[in-house]
């Protein structure tokens, strides 16, 4: 019965309507309303997962309504094995953001929570849109709530950060719009999957690829267009950092898989080397930069960029592997590793930003040097932070290991040096994460402010505990996650193996 409902529309519009209602509610009502609506959205995600058929690469839960028939623009939705994990992630993280904000946000609570609910609906819209215009509208719409979240509830330097964030990402995505309109004139359709079959000459493909690359590289972000992220993360309130890191970055990775690879496979093939080199730079260069950070949030932000390097690396490995063997052995491992990495990073970075939020709420500083010996006064919190730090360092048994392991093993199929540079993250990731842990958590009590810290309360334990369980579950048994994506990834790789020329 549930399967007959327009589940995707509900997943998009329930949080948006809920967000609108929350905006209008009073301070106390807003919290309850936001929690109810975010949990309802999570509830709606369960039948989506349960009803999803892992045996097929076809789009499922399709919806189709004519929107602007004159231009063949439709309200078309659907999910496959690549978008489903990201939708589930979005539905999972948002309630935690609402719960975490329960007592810590005191200024304009209803607007804050409303913005996050609306953001949730829009992000699910990005991952389920099948029509290019709809996709673009949702894509750009995510900027508005995030712009407000950083600009209103952010830190001292929030205006600079928020404008930088907006212009940077907007600059990237307008090129995508140009490319999509160009594609429409070539094919007469905005249906993303119809565009996958659209033949294109190499010159056209190259220009389209570069336009897409600008949009997605900024979003994910890739070196050297990453500098908006540390500023945005640092200035954003806890919930903003969480959503930014956990979900909006994934839009970039999703874009590569949904648009770049299938629509312009030959240009992707031609420029795969460039993307892979940039990914490796991200992993190594950004890893070193993370080591130099003195601000916990900046450190985690840089860590995010470095981890996203695995997503772009895993995605584009297929082209190196195609050049070696026609069946591209290792390509599925790399691509699925990239998706696993997106989900896993969503959980771990969210958890780490929540942890920073916990500290910031108590001490009102993000400087590593202001802390030291936190374990003495906050043992429960310290335990959880060490769990997430280990996950961030890719320890087996946590989700952080799965994606990195898959991508490293896959890249050995292609080239020793690609694998070796990627594997450097084992050392660098552990170095910047655990060095931070050493300076913040361990040691004797550093000052009286640390001595006065109170351990986390039940609400905080709940938020972090749920994430810890998810991180461990995914690390101990990733099979359910990768099974969702097998069919779609197979199809994507078969599709890009065939030239459009």
């Amino acid at each position, binding site marked *: 019965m549930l399967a007959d409902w327009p589940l995707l529309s509900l997943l998009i519009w329930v949080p948006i309507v809920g967000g609108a209602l929350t905006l209008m509610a009073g301070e106390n009502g807003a919290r309850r309303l936001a929690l109810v609506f975010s949990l309802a959205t999570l509830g709606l995600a369960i039948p989506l997962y349960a009803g999803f058929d892992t045996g097929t690469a076809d789009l499922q839960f399709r919806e189709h309504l004519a929107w602007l028939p004159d231009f063949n623009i439709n309200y078309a939705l659907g999910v496959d094995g690549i978008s489903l994990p990201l939708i589930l992630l979005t539905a999972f993280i948002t309630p935690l953001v609402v719960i975490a904000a329960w007592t810590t946000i005191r200024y304009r609570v209803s607007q804050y929570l409303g913005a996050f609910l609306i953001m949730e609906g829009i992000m699910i819209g990005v991952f389920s849109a099948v029509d290019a215009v709809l996709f673009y509208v949702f894509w750009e719409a995510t900027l508005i709530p995030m712009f407000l979240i950083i600009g209103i509830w952010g830190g001292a330097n929030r205006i600079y950060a928020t404008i930088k964030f907006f212009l940077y990402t907007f600059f990237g995505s307008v090129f995508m719009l140009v490319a999509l309109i160009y594609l429409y004139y070539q094919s007469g359709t905005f249906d993303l999957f119809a565009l996958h079959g659209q033949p294109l000459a190499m010159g056209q493909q190259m220009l389209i690829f570069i336009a897409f690359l600008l949009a997605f590289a900024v979003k994910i972000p890739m070196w050297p267009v990453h*500098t908006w992220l540390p500023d945005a993360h640092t200035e954003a309130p806890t919930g903003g950092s969480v959503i930014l890191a956990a979900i909006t970055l994934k839009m970039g990775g999703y874009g590569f898989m949904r648009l770049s690879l299938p629509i312009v496979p030959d240009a992707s093939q031609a420029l795969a080397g460039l993307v892979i080199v940039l990914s490796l730079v991200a992993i190594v260069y950004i890893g070193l930069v993370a080591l130099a950070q003195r601000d916990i949030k900046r450190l985690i932000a840089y860590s995010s960029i470095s981890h996203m390097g695995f997503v772009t690396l895993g995605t584009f490995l297929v082209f190196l592997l195609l050049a070696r063997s026609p069946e591209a052995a290792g390509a599925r491992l790399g691509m699925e590793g990239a998706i696993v990495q997106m989900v896993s990073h969503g959980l771990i970075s969210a958890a780490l930003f929540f942890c920073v939020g916990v500290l910031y709420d108590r001490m009102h500083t993000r400087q590593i040097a202001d802390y030291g010996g936190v374990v003495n006064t906050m043992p429960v919190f310290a335990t959880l932070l060490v769990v997430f730090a280990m996950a961030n360092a890719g320890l087996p048994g946590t989700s952080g290991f799965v994606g990195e392991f898959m991508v*490293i093993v896959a890249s050995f199929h292609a080239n*020793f040096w690609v*694998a070796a540079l990627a*594997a450097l993250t*084992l050392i660098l990731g552990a170095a910047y994460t655990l060095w931070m842990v050493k300076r913040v958590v361990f040691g004797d009590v550093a000052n009286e402010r640390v001595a006065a810290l109170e351990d986390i309360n039940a609400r905080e334990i709940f938020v972090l505990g749920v994430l810890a369980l998810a991180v461990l579950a995914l690390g101990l048994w990733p099979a359910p996650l990768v099974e969702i994506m097998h069919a779609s990834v197979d199809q994507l790789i078969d599709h890009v193996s065939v030239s459009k020329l």
Partner: protein
Amino acid sequence: MESVYLAIPLLPLFGALVAGLFGGWIGRAGAHWVTILTVAASFVLSAVAFWHIIIDGGPVFDEAIYTWMVVEGIRFEIGFLVDPLTVLMMTTVTFVSLLVHVFTIGYMHDDPGYQRFFCYIALFTFAMLMLVMANNFLQLFFGWEAVGLISYLLIGFWYKKESAIFANLKAFLVNRVGDFGFILGIGAIVAYTGSLHYGEVFAAAPTLVGEQIEIIAGLPWEVMTVICLLLFIGAMGKSAQVPLHVWLPDSMEGPTPISALIHAATMVTAGIFLVARMSPLYELSTVALSTVLVIGAVTALFMGLVAIVQHDIKRVVAYSTLSQLGYMTVALGASAYSVAIFHLMTHAFFKALLFLAAGSVIIALHHEQDMRRMGGLRRYMPVTYVTALIGALALIGFPGFAGYYSKDAIIEAVGYSQIPGAGFAYWAVLIGVFITALYTFRMIFLAFHGEPRDPRVDKHAHESPLVVTVPLVLLAIPSVVIGAVAMGPLLFGGFFGEAIHVAPERDVVASVAAHFDNWLQFIIHGFQAPAVYLALGGLLVAWLVWGYKPEIADYAAARLSLIHWVLERKYGFDELYQAVFARGARRMGDLLADTGDRRVIDGWVVNGSARLVGYGSQVVRHLQSGFLYHYAFGMIIGLLLLIAMVTFL
């Protein structure tokens, strides 16, 4: 048997979870009872498994427990391989772990982190068992990293101590350098064999002989050599071989029970176990075996030398551990895998014994570890003294003690080895015997003999309680007898069956077997070789220098000041790594953050383009002056241009 095999690692995990999550509720006694009982049960079941496989000749168990995931037809599984090698490791690990658990009751008696400590060591037992019981590389890596994690947590157990939290970070990062090689090795195995399962990889390995990979263009390498060397980098990290040895001495910052369990008896031998387990791969690459042999020999000799100048009793034992791990590695390189495992086992007993004896001394002296402030302890702590003496005799390979058989077998095996580097390795391990006796008995004489050099010794020193001395005695027994009992079946009786594979042309153990009838005859045979005399000589010199005339030590230190200086600096590895890697990486990070991100990307490109737009706007703004005559003038010019175009074009 499957449920027994499953219970063996899961019992300690259960104990750890109970002690960790409900530690406050079950109290201190509850925590030690639940972990000790579960580890004891695990030991009993390991013994049952040992009996089943070895005595009853039961079938080897090689099955998946659950499927982690399947991608591209590659099965990523959690599964057990229980064969003779595994059951030997399982019984050794659980036995030592059990005694260390008991010892901990006494050692950690007053520590506020009592429950946490029991949780960690039980968890370690689980992880170590998962490591040795793996039937595939994925689970091996799981166990590998899990023991590393717990080692990290335990070295930093006293988290207020700056030196402890420095040491644990260092240990983790150096191990990660090893894991960097290890994970690439796993990547290579999957890329070339398409499987992670030991059996399938071993079956596919011979077909890879002759296949090459160009890591540096124009320089082809044998694939098998690359795989073996990469895996060995992992083994070097865990088993602390030069140049990745630097973390082990610092790991002594942790409580002594874990130095015994993790940093002597079990975890650090994981690398030795790894190479022995991978013997079907290593036998395919002489280059890899030679590398293993030389690195082991260097570690065995040069780390032993450092032990002579250490003052901290635990550090002496730690450097001794490095040196002994070097011996095991040498045995691996000489294709004498069974001998390496034999030494691993005897070493587990006598080194755990020595560490626990050192721990007993340390508690008696209220956490004093400097041997210069000890002396004369044998009168105050007779049980500790006798057991430590037994451990020391086993360590130096005194005829009849456990270490004698395993060390002598290594030396003989290397003597027969023909691969490049064997000559050097033979001399290194031979000289190493003298050195071992020297530093071991230096420790015995300094700590237990002579007169107390510190008044506190007289005041505090007393024999430790039963929870401490009973484990000492229980470890002393195998330290004496296990060599004689195990040598025949283990090395020459086909104990390992299919678990260890040696190419016939490299089978040095068979050459050793040629003149082995029984253990007694092996002792007599030993007196025809130099090793025994070197050990006795070392003992004698130690007695002369530190027992009989202590002035000689100062004199020698002064005369050999350069060597002394080099040894005290531990060859400068720490300083070098600190300067190059630790500081270098941070400098590099600072440079990239300041110049790369802040100046070039943000300063020039991002904010620069913003400035450029701003500047352009400033210029263009002048056109919009707001004066009517400016606009009128513009119109006239425009009109003239239009007229001109229409007229002339």
